[in-house]
Protein backbone atom coordinates (compact mmCIF):
# COMPACT_ATOMS: atom_id res chain seq x y z
CA UNK A 1 0.00 0.00 0.00
CA UNK A 2 3.03 2.23 0.21
CA UNK A 3 2.49 3.34 -3.40
CA UNK A 4 -0.14 5.84 -2.31
CA UNK A 5 1.91 7.56 0.35
CA UNK A 6 2.94 11.15 -0.34
CA UNK A 7 6.36 11.39 -1.90
CA UNK A 8 6.66 15.11 -2.60
CA UNK A 9 4.60 18.25 -2.74
CA UNK A 10 2.55 19.58 -5.59
CA UNK A 11 2.18 22.81 -7.49
CA UNK A 12 0.66 25.95 -6.04
CA UNK A 13 -1.47 26.86 -9.06
CA UNK A 14 -4.70 25.13 -9.98
CA UNK A 15 -7.38 25.84 -12.56
CA UNK A 16 -10.68 25.41 -10.73
CA UNK A 17 -14.12 26.69 -11.74
CA UNK A 18 -12.71 28.29 -14.86
CA UNK A 19 -10.11 30.40 -13.04
CA UNK A 20 -6.59 30.03 -11.73
CA UNK A 21 -5.94 29.95 -8.00
CA UNK A 22 -2.85 30.25 -5.93
CA UNK A 23 -3.18 27.49 -3.31
CA UNK A 24 -0.99 25.91 -0.63
CA UNK A 25 1.20 23.09 -1.84
CA UNK A 26 -0.42 19.66 -1.43
CA UNK A 27 1.18 16.24 -1.05
CA UNK A 28 1.69 14.29 -4.26
CA UNK A 29 1.54 10.53 -4.52
CA UNK A 30 3.64 8.62 -7.01
CA UNK A 31 1.97 6.04 -9.23
CA UNK A 32 3.87 2.95 -10.40
CA UNK A 33 4.15 4.40 -13.90
CA UNK A 34 6.29 7.17 -12.42
CA UNK A 35 3.78 10.01 -12.66
CA UNK A 36 2.55 11.89 -9.64
CA UNK A 37 -0.88 13.05 -8.71
CA UNK A 38 -2.99 14.54 -5.94
CA UNK A 39 -5.40 12.56 -3.82
CA UNK A 40 -9.01 13.49 -4.40
CA UNK A 41 -9.66 13.97 -0.69
CA UNK A 42 -6.74 16.38 -0.40
CA UNK A 43 -8.41 18.64 -2.95
CA UNK A 44 -11.69 18.89 -1.05
CA UNK A 45 -10.59 21.62 1.40
CA UNK A 46 -9.25 23.56 -1.60
CA UNK A 47 -12.57 23.20 -3.38
CA UNK A 48 -14.42 24.46 -0.31
CA UNK A 49 -12.10 27.44 -0.04
CA UNK A 50 -12.69 28.20 -3.73
CA UNK A 51 -16.44 27.96 -3.13
CA UNK A 52 -16.23 30.54 -0.33
CA UNK A 53 -14.08 32.83 -2.48
CA UNK A 54 -16.54 32.58 -5.38
CA UNK A 55 -19.61 33.13 -3.20
CA UNK A 56 -18.05 36.06 -1.38
CA UNK A 57 -17.74 38.12 -4.56
CA UNK A 58 -20.81 40.33 -5.17
CA UNK A 59 -20.73 39.51 -8.87
CA UNK A 60 -22.67 37.23 -11.19
CA UNK A 61 -21.67 33.59 -11.40
CA UNK A 62 -19.94 32.40 -14.55
CA UNK A 63 -21.14 29.13 -16.12
CA UNK A 64 -17.95 27.41 -14.92
CA UNK A 65 -18.39 28.66 -11.37
CA UNK A 66 -22.03 27.57 -11.32
CA UNK A 67 -21.15 24.10 -12.58
CA UNK A 68 -18.35 23.83 -10.02
CA UNK A 69 -20.63 24.82 -7.14
CA UNK A 70 -23.33 22.38 -8.29
CA UNK A 71 -20.82 19.52 -8.52
CA UNK A 72 -19.36 20.33 -5.13
CA UNK A 73 -22.76 20.56 -3.48
CA UNK A 74 -24.11 17.53 -5.37
CA UNK A 75 -26.91 19.72 -6.66
CA UNK A 76 -28.89 18.44 -9.64
CA UNK A 77 -29.83 21.06 -12.21
CA UNK A 78 -33.54 20.33 -11.79
CA UNK A 79 -33.22 21.23 -8.10
CA UNK A 80 -31.11 24.24 -9.00
CA UNK A 81 -33.98 25.49 -11.16
CA UNK A 82 -36.38 25.07 -8.22
CA UNK A 83 -34.08 26.97 -5.87
CA UNK A 84 -33.60 29.77 -8.36
CA UNK A 85 -37.30 29.85 -9.18
CA UNK A 86 -36.76 29.42 -12.91
CA UNK A 87 -37.54 26.88 -15.58
CA UNK A 88 -34.95 24.16 -16.15
CA UNK A 89 -34.34 25.49 -19.65
CA UNK A 90 -33.09 28.73 -18.05
CA UNK A 91 -30.52 26.74 -16.08
CA UNK A 92 -29.36 25.09 -19.29
CA UNK A 93 -28.90 28.52 -20.87
CA UNK A 94 -26.99 29.79 -17.80
CA UNK A 95 -24.62 26.83 -17.98
CA UNK A 96 -24.03 27.13 -21.71
CA UNK A 97 -23.78 30.89 -22.09
CA UNK A 98 -23.38 33.68 -19.57
CA UNK A 99 -24.35 32.28 -16.18
CA UNK A 100 -27.26 33.50 -14.06
CA UNK A 101 -27.98 37.24 -13.83
CA UNK A 102 -26.65 39.10 -10.80
CA UNK A 103 -29.76 38.89 -8.61
CA UNK A 104 -30.17 35.14 -9.12
CA UNK A 105 -26.43 34.62 -8.73
CA UNK A 106 -26.38 36.27 -5.30
CA UNK A 107 -29.41 34.26 -4.25
CA UNK A 108 -27.73 31.04 -5.40
CA UNK A 109 -24.43 31.95 -3.75
CA UNK A 110 -26.25 32.36 -0.46
CA UNK A 111 -27.84 28.93 -0.91
CA UNK A 112 -24.49 27.31 -1.76
CA UNK A 113 -22.74 28.81 1.25
CA UNK A 114 -25.45 27.73 3.63
CA UNK A 115 -25.61 24.28 2.05
CA UNK A 116 -21.86 23.63 1.88
CA UNK A 117 -21.23 24.67 5.48
CA UNK A 118 -24.23 23.35 7.41
CA UNK A 119 -22.19 22.88 10.59
CA UNK A 120 -21.48 26.60 10.52
CA UNK A 121 -24.92 27.84 9.62
CA UNK A 122 -26.76 25.65 12.14
CA UNK A 123 -24.92 27.26 15.05
CA UNK A 124 -24.68 30.86 13.90
CA UNK A 125 -26.91 33.86 14.27
CA UNK A 126 -26.52 36.48 11.57
CA UNK A 127 -26.82 40.04 12.86
CA UNK A 128 -29.67 42.10 11.49
CA UNK A 129 -27.21 44.64 10.10
CA UNK A 130 -25.83 41.98 7.73
CA UNK A 131 -29.22 41.05 6.32
CA UNK A 132 -30.04 44.19 4.29
CA UNK A 133 -28.74 42.93 0.96
CA UNK A 134 -27.70 39.58 -0.47
CA UNK A 135 -24.20 41.00 -0.95
CA UNK A 136 -24.06 41.91 2.77
CA UNK A 137 -25.11 38.43 3.81
CA UNK A 138 -22.54 36.83 1.52
CA UNK A 139 -19.75 39.05 2.81
CA UNK A 140 -20.68 38.45 6.45
CA UNK A 141 -21.22 34.68 6.11
CA UNK A 142 -18.00 34.18 4.11
CA UNK A 143 -15.96 36.05 6.70
CA UNK A 144 -17.60 34.14 9.54
CA UNK A 145 -16.98 30.78 7.82
CA UNK A 146 -13.31 31.66 7.40
CA UNK A 147 -13.07 32.57 11.07
CA UNK A 148 -14.69 29.41 12.33
CA UNK A 149 -13.59 26.74 9.84
CA UNK A 150 -9.93 26.17 8.98
CA UNK A 151 -9.82 26.52 5.21
CA UNK A 152 -6.66 26.65 3.12
CA UNK A 153 -5.54 30.12 2.09
CA UNK A 154 -6.16 30.63 -1.59
CA UNK A 155 -6.35 33.60 -3.92
CA UNK A 156 -7.15 34.14 -7.58
CA UNK A 157 -4.12 34.45 -9.75
CA UNK A 158 -3.41 35.11 -13.42
CA UNK A 159 -2.93 32.09 -15.63
CA UNK A 160 0.62 30.76 -15.45
CA UNK A 161 2.94 30.83 -18.42
CA UNK A 162 1.85 28.62 -21.32
CA UNK A 163 4.49 26.01 -20.57
CA UNK A 164 2.88 25.34 -17.22
CA UNK A 165 -0.70 25.83 -18.32
CA UNK A 166 -3.08 23.13 -17.16
CA UNK A 167 -0.25 21.13 -15.73
CA UNK A 168 -0.51 20.92 -11.97
CA UNK A 169 1.48 17.71 -12.12
CA UNK A 170 5.21 17.55 -11.99
CA UNK A 171 6.88 15.80 -14.89
CA UNK A 172 7.92 12.36 -13.79
Amino acid at each position, binding site marked *: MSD*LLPTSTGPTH*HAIAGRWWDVPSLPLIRLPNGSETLRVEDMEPIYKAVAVALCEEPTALTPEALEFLCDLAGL*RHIRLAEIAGVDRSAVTVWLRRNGPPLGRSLHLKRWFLLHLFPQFTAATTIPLSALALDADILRWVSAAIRESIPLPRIRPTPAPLPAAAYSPLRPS
Partner: protein
Amino acid sequence: MSPFDLTDPNLLTISTPWVPQAWHALLRDLHTKGRLVVQHEPWTPRYERARLKLRDLLAGLQVLGWQHGEQEGALELALWALDPNHIRRGWYACVRVVWRDGAPTYAHLYCFYDGRDQSPSVFTLATARSLARDGRFHVP
Protein backbone atom coordinates in the same frame (compact mmCIF):
# COMPACT_ATOMS: atom_id res chain seq x y z
CA MET B 1 -21.61 -20.96 -9.62
CA SER B 2 -18.69 -19.18 -8.06
CA PRO B 3 -17.89 -20.13 -4.47
CA PHE B 4 -17.12 -16.47 -3.88
CA ASP B 5 -19.41 -13.56 -3.34
CA LEU B 6 -18.34 -11.58 -6.37
CA THR B 7 -19.90 -8.42 -5.10
CA ASP B 8 -17.26 -8.38 -2.38
CA PRO B 9 -14.40 -6.31 -3.83
CA ASN B 10 -11.90 -7.95 -1.52
CA LEU B 11 -12.45 -11.29 -3.21
CA LEU B 12 -11.78 -10.09 -6.74
CA THR B 13 -8.56 -11.08 -8.40
CA ILE B 14 -7.03 -9.90 -11.61
CA SER B 15 -8.04 -13.19 -13.24
CA THR B 16 -11.76 -12.75 -12.66
CA PRO B 17 -12.23 -10.04 -15.19
CA TRP B 18 -15.82 -10.11 -16.28
CA VAL B 19 -18.31 -9.54 -13.50
CA PRO B 20 -19.44 -5.97 -14.19
CA GLN B 21 -21.32 -5.51 -10.92
CA ALA B 22 -18.32 -6.72 -8.97
CA TRP B 23 -15.96 -4.30 -10.71
CA HIS B 24 -18.42 -1.51 -10.09
CA ALA B 25 -18.46 -2.44 -6.40
CA LEU B 26 -14.66 -2.54 -6.36
CA LEU B 27 -14.38 0.97 -7.82
CA ARG B 28 -16.86 2.37 -5.32
CA ASP B 29 -15.00 0.63 -2.52
CA LEU B 30 -11.64 2.07 -3.64
CA HIS B 31 -13.19 5.53 -3.94
CA THR B 32 -14.62 5.30 -0.43
CA LYS B 33 -11.16 4.38 0.84
CA GLY B 34 -9.55 7.31 -0.99
CA ARG B 35 -7.85 4.95 -3.43
CA LEU B 36 -9.28 6.23 -6.68
CA VAL B 37 -7.04 8.85 -8.24
CA VAL B 38 -7.53 11.02 -11.32
CA GLN B 39 -4.40 11.64 -13.31
CA HIS B 40 -3.78 12.66 -16.88
CA GLU B 41 -0.91 14.31 -18.66
CA PRO B 42 -1.20 16.92 -19.86
CA TRP B 43 -3.64 18.01 -17.21
CA THR B 44 -6.73 19.74 -18.61
CA PRO B 45 -9.87 21.29 -17.08
CA ARG B 46 -11.72 18.15 -18.14
CA TYR B 47 -9.84 16.14 -15.53
CA GLU B 48 -10.58 18.73 -12.86
CA ARG B 49 -14.24 18.23 -13.78
CA ALA B 50 -13.77 14.45 -13.63
CA ARG B 51 -12.51 14.78 -10.06
CA LEU B 52 -15.58 16.75 -9.11
CA LYS B 53 -17.96 14.41 -10.91
CA LEU B 54 -16.50 11.16 -9.55
CA ARG B 55 -19.38 10.70 -7.13
CA ASP B 56 -21.97 10.91 -9.91
CA LEU B 57 -19.86 8.83 -12.28
CA LEU B 58 -19.52 6.03 -9.74
CA ALA B 59 -23.18 6.16 -8.80
CA GLY B 60 -24.45 5.61 -12.32
CA LEU B 61 -21.71 3.82 -14.20
CA GLN B 62 -21.82 0.71 -16.32
CA VAL B 63 -18.68 -1.34 -16.79
CA LEU B 64 -18.42 -1.87 -20.54
CA GLY B 65 -15.33 -3.99 -20.96
CA TRP B 66 -11.85 -4.81 -19.81
CA GLN B 67 -8.28 -5.31 -20.96
CA HIS B 68 -5.05 -6.22 -19.28
CA GLY B 69 -2.94 -3.17 -18.62
CA GLU B 70 0.55 -2.62 -19.95
CA GLN B 71 1.98 -2.75 -16.47
CA GLU B 72 1.96 -6.09 -14.69
CA GLY B 73 -0.83 -6.54 -12.16
CA ALA B 74 -3.10 -3.99 -13.76
CA LEU B 75 -6.52 -4.41 -15.31
CA GLU B 76 -8.15 -1.61 -17.26
CA LEU B 77 -11.89 -1.06 -17.37
CA ALA B 78 -13.98 1.03 -19.77
CA LEU B 79 -16.89 2.79 -18.10
CA TRP B 80 -19.92 4.74 -19.18
CA ALA B 81 -22.50 6.72 -17.23
CA LEU B 82 -25.27 9.10 -18.13
CA ASP B 83 -24.77 12.62 -16.90
CA PRO B 84 -27.58 12.88 -14.33
CA ASN B 85 -28.12 16.49 -15.34
CA HIS B 86 -28.40 15.96 -19.07
CA ILE B 87 -30.48 13.27 -20.69
CA ARG B 88 -28.51 13.74 -23.88
CA ARG B 89 -25.05 13.69 -22.38
CA GLY B 90 -22.94 10.79 -21.17
CA TRP B 91 -19.49 10.26 -19.73
CA TYR B 92 -16.95 7.73 -20.94
CA ALA B 93 -14.01 6.90 -18.73
CA CYS B 94 -11.19 4.40 -18.45
CA VAL B 95 -9.82 3.24 -15.13
CA ARG B 96 -6.72 1.19 -14.39
CA VAL B 97 -7.03 -1.04 -11.31
CA VAL B 98 -3.68 -2.04 -9.84
CA TRP B 99 -3.04 -5.09 -7.69
CA ARG B 100 -0.30 -5.69 -5.22
CA ASP B 101 0.22 -8.92 -3.28
CA GLY B 102 -3.04 -10.27 -4.62
CA ALA B 103 -5.18 -7.35 -3.48
CA PRO B 104 -6.49 -4.36 -5.44
CA THR B 105 -4.59 -1.36 -4.09
CA TYR B 106 -5.89 1.58 -6.08
CA ALA B 107 -7.64 2.67 -9.24
CA HIS B 108 -6.38 5.33 -11.59
CA LEU B 109 -8.84 7.19 -13.83
CA TYR B 110 -6.73 8.09 -16.84
CA CYS B 111 -9.32 8.93 -19.50
CA PHE B 112 -12.50 10.99 -19.25
CA TYR B 113 -14.70 12.14 -22.14
CA ASP B 114 -17.69 14.39 -21.53
CA GLY B 115 -18.18 15.88 -24.98
CA ARG B 116 -16.37 19.09 -24.05
CA ASP B 117 -12.86 20.43 -24.63
CA GLN B 118 -12.59 18.51 -27.89
CA SER B 119 -13.52 15.18 -26.27
CA PRO B 120 -15.99 12.86 -28.00
CA SER B 121 -19.65 13.03 -27.08
CA VAL B 122 -20.90 9.71 -25.80
CA PHE B 123 -24.67 10.04 -25.70
CA THR B 124 -25.59 6.41 -25.80
CA LEU B 125 -24.48 3.09 -24.43
CA ALA B 126 -23.98 1.82 -28.00
CA THR B 127 -21.58 4.69 -28.74
CA ALA B 128 -19.70 4.01 -25.53
CA ARG B 129 -19.38 0.31 -26.32
CA SER B 130 -18.10 1.14 -29.77
CA LEU B 131 -15.57 3.56 -28.30
CA ALA B 132 -14.42 0.89 -25.85
CA ARG B 133 -13.96 -1.62 -28.67
CA ASP B 134 -11.91 0.96 -30.58
CA GLY B 135 -9.78 1.26 -27.45
CA ARG B 136 -9.12 -2.50 -27.61
CA PHE B 137 -11.24 -3.34 -24.62
CA HIS B 138 -12.96 -6.72 -24.58
CA VAL B 139 -16.61 -5.76 -24.72
CA PRO B 140 -18.89 -8.79 -24.30
